[in-house]
């Protein structure tokens, strides 16, 4: 197991290195940040001073070299706009995005699995058909549009839930989050539901497909022949088998939940990383874009590793050799 984790970590570092190169070169190819940053009335001398200060007069290779040297010391550059370390800015915004992503994931799992299992057990009932039709809608409607509709309906028309911001936050166990206050919860619900909709649909479909496959297996019939109750068969024998693909997909897509929260965060003005990166792209704030992408890659790589480990916990057949 240790050897497996070590080998995977090494692979992850290579992925990070390759990614940093692509990101750095890519970002340097688009636009000139100086135009955005400088006062239009500044003279040539001042422009040159800014360019020199930002290190933009050096060749790209040299800039990359300095970026890497600094990155190994935990410095991913300084924001052109805010003048603060990019990493610090991103980490400040990270809890808001994380709580949004986790809350969405919670919605997707806690509604998706029961609905999917139900639809799998009774594939011909009206309720199941409604669930499946709903999941197709969840898949196909664009996130930004659903977000706007949610705001229109729940905030503007009914006035039940607030449409922007994070609301009150409270700190427990060193974690500051809006899910600890009632006001915060009312703020997080709409954006989290918006973000969860796509995941919810895929969890429903996975749970349904898994249920329909597993319920026909001989071991389910054998469990019935042993005299187990139907509830127990579903909770133990069925659920543990259908969780394998669900965990894989949820784990791998948690990264995309964080990465794609940009749309939801923009629609609901949620003060997370997604909002920061969109602003940074508009302002050509290169260090933030690079740092953000590096962090996202790191999250993806870590999630992959966690999924692989979790997978072997769930399915004894793929348990890594050497552990018994």
């Amino acid at each position, binding site marked *: 197991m240790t050897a497996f984790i070590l080998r995977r970590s090494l692979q992850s570092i290579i992925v990070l290195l390759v990614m940093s190169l692509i990101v750095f070169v890519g970002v340097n190819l688009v636009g000139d940040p100086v135009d955005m940053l400088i006062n239009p009335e500044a003279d040539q001398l001042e422009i040159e001073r800014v360019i020199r200060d930002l290190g933009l007069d050096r060749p790209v290779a040299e800039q990359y070299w300095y970026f890497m040297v600094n990155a190994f010391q935990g410095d991913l550059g300084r924001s052109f706009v805010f003048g603060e370390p990019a990493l610090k800015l991103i980490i400040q915004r990270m809890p808001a995005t994380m709580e949004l992503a986790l809350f969405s994931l919670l919605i997707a799992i806690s509604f998706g699995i029961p609905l999917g299992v139900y639809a799998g057990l009774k594939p011909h009932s009206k309720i199941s058909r409604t669930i499946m039709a709903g999941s197709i809608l969840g898949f196909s409607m664009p996130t930004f549009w659903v977000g706007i509709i949610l705001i229109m309906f729940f905030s503007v028309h009914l006035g039940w839930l607030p449409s922007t911001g994070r609301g009150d936050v409270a700190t427990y166990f060193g974690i500051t989050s809006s899910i600890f206050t009632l006001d915060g919860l009312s703020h997080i619900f709409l954006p989290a539901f918006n973000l969860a909709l796509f995941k919810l649909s895929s969890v429903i479909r996975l749970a349904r497909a898994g249920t329909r496959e597993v319920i026909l297996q*001989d071991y389910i*019939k054998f469990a019935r022949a*042993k*005299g187990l109750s139907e509830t127990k068969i579903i909770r133990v024998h069925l659920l543990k088998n259908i969780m394998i693909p669900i965990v894989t997909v949820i784990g791998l897509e948690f990264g995309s939940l964080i990465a794609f929260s940009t749309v939801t965060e923009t629609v609901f003005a949620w003060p997370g990383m997604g909002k920061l990166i969109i602003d940074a792209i508009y302002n050509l704030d290169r260090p933030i874009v690079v740092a953000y992408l590096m962090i996202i890659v790191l999250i993806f790589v870590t999630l992959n590793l966690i999924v692989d480990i979790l997978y072997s916990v769930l399915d*004894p057949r793929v348990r890594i050799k050497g552990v018994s």
Partner: protein
Amino acid sequence: MDPILQIKDLQTHFFTKAGVLKAVDGVSLEIKSGEIVGLVGESGSGKSITGFSIMGLVDAPGQIVGGQILFKGQDLAKLSPAEMQAYRGNRIAMIFQDPMMTLNPVLRIETQMVETILSHDSSVSKVDAHARARDALGLVGISSPDERLRAYPHQFSGGMRQRVSIAIAMLNRPDLIIADEPTTALDVTIQGQVIHEMQRLCQETKTALLWITHDLAVVAGIAERICVMYAGRVVEQGANANIIAAPMHPYTKGLLGSVPGQNRRGQPLQQIEGMVPSMMNLPKGCAFQNRCNLVSDICTSTNPDATSTKDGRLVRCHNIAAGDRA
């Protein structure tokens, strides 16, 4: 001895879009306490559905539409699902054909055994249930059962897995075990071991056994009585020795004739000509008419009733010699 299981005129039909399929159509059979009965037939003869009907595990669109399944005098066909659940795995257990598929791949053997005990008697402590599971594994000849309890199904060979299923079936000391082709998926050498093991266990624990198989040779070795099924009906039933020595129904004769034997070395194997008729539209009269060499006018017009014979058999055939009839 009183019969522990008495099936009277059981009818299990499948209601499909194409029509009603009478998978089991008037099956009657008896199993006495501690007796081994062989239920023999081709694929689709309704033998497995008979087994599942006893267990109350016929899948939709199948349904028991008539007859009685008397287990110690209680009609199982009339029980509610919850009442039936209390019998399953407790008083009546079942072993399936493919040991690779019957154990849940993601649960430890221990979990799968202990839940069988606890779901029928929640007063048993975890420690006692564990001990009983371990003893049951030992009983079916699995070495170092303590260690094997913690293993997962994929760590066992096919024969071992079937032993585990047998151990699970035996856990609650049932009165009757229905074994649905338990050795078909196994190697011939393992097959012999498992058959022997089952026979020994049933004798020791006085458990009755309904052994469902398509292989007449298997039941000839262990069963006290044999029932031969064809197209949803029992065509011949009686004592093992009588049937093997002198089959009366043409179908049983055909089945016996197609078993390879040592004294027929070098000669082509006999086979029953023709095909099993479609269960969706059985011919009028006897279902075996299109493959029978004794077929006459009465066979194509009237379905034969079960005729008792002098040696205590029941045979569904018009052509039983008058001297054999009881």
